[in-house]
């Protein structure tokens, strides 16, 4: 499968003041790539467009030549930067996890999610613990591409390596395409294989 960004332009106001324009790239489902660029240049916005949360002003996001589905489980899943905002504060973790159907036991174990956490509310878990749930629910069988937007920035090094080890293994085994955003070069060296042509002119300068 190929995830393709075709001539994507985006501006938040709808007219003028474009955040970025004419972005073109292709990612295959056995690749692991990263999006470069300093803060505030639209990396998260690009992620949201790729995962179908935002519609680009111009251009298209294509999955195997077809636009992303509007209804049902989206094969391109995004894991957000702030796990505490990505879970409903009034639901128990069990219910949050079942949002996208049942999650395999293997994934729950691999991410180190404990049985005891299931009956708690999100306020009663730490950011790292919440982020594991967010990753787990995005790893259903139908997932073909995973977009990881700064998913480990707020975690300590041990938790980071734990989560990334699992994620890398899973992604390689199931041939899920991985798109990573991070400011940590050491992490990117470990995780990603190539850089996407985004913000190339800024990068060159």
């Amino acid at each position, binding site marked *: 499968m190929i995830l393709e960004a075709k001539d994507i332009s985006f501006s938040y106001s709808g007219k003028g003041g474009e955040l970025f324009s004419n972005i073109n790239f292709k990612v295959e489902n056995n690749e692991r790539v990263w999006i470069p660029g300093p803060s505030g240049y639209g990396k998260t916005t690009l992620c949201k467009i790729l*995962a*179908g*949360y935002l519609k680009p002003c111009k251009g298209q996001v294509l999955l195997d030549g077809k636009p992303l589905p509007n*209804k*049902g*489980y*989206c094969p391109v*899943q*995004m894991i*957000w930067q*702030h796990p505490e*905002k*990505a*879970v*409903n*504060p*009034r*639901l128990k973790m069990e*219910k949050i996890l079942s*949002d*996208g*159907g049942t999650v395999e036991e293997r994934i729950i174990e691999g991410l180190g999610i404990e049985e005891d956490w299931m009956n708690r*509310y999100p*306020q009663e878990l730490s950011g790292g613990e919440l982020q594991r749930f967010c990753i787990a*629910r*995005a790893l*259903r069988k139908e997932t073909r591409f995973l977009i990881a937007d700064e998913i480990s920035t707020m975690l300590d090094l041990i938790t980071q390596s734990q989560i990334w080890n699992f994620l890398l293994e899973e992604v390689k085994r199931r041939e899920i395409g991985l798109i990573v955003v991070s400011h940590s070069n050491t992490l990117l060296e470990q995780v990603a294989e190539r850089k996407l042509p985004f913000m190339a002119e800024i990068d060159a300068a």
Partner: protein
Amino acid sequence: MENVRNHRKEIRGQGLECGKNLQCRQNLEFGLRIRLNQRQKARILLIFSVIFLTVTVILGICFHDAAMVTDFSRKNLAPCLSYPFGTDWLGRNMFCRTLTGLSTSILIGILAAGFSAIMALILGICAATLGKTADSGITFVIDMVMGIPHVLLLILISYAMGKGLKGVIVGVALTHWTSLARLIRGEVLQLRESEYIQIAAKLGCSKWQIARKHMLPHLFPQFVVGLVLLFPHAILHESSITFLGFGLSTEQPAIGIILSESMRYLIMGKWWLAVFPGLMLVLTVVLFEKGGTALRQILDPGSVHK
């Protein structure tokens, strides 16, 4: 020597920090104890209010006939054991009259507040989901109704509806929905934009599933608490427009009527005619208010951590 001194400083610093930590922990534990108590307190308060209000309503209905009996052999009696609230100038038992009046008020309150809250729910959700034109239209109506003083609008509507029970209920229902509607509109708008709702949609939840699973737990407490907190308003406004003569008709034992009639006898020293019904009205309203606040504390899981 220098080393030793530094070392000592370090130790002392650590000691200080330990002390601070300990104090912090003690404070935390202390806070936890109070918190638990508050939650339990809320529960007890809620149960007490519910029991008191149900008993009042049931007794009021039972005493309805007794409240109408006039007996000139016992008129103008001061409060005593057999007539705890005394009797009035027609020899009517004020205890029965007060309870019956209160139960009428509570029932009117439930009806009016219920209609009002349902109106608020529907209009609030419409404003938030039906697009910009509907939103600005409904917001305009909310602002307009809120801009007119409640009692004035109530009297107007009640009078136009021909006073009586119908006038009061319609009046209260039409004037009290605004703040709850605004609250629900804001909540739905905010929820729609929240990340977890967007994520749920991408995880394959349908619109209906999102509304039921993700939005309902947020809206339900707001709605129920809003509904309960509408009661005291409804009851007070019912009493006040009845007192002013635009509400229920005079033969009915309503609190507003009891109070307005007792005004004439107050200067003659019949203090019990106004004091006991007034106190009971205040008690009912306060209990509704406290019960609603307690309910909010119980329904909001986040409040456990406050």
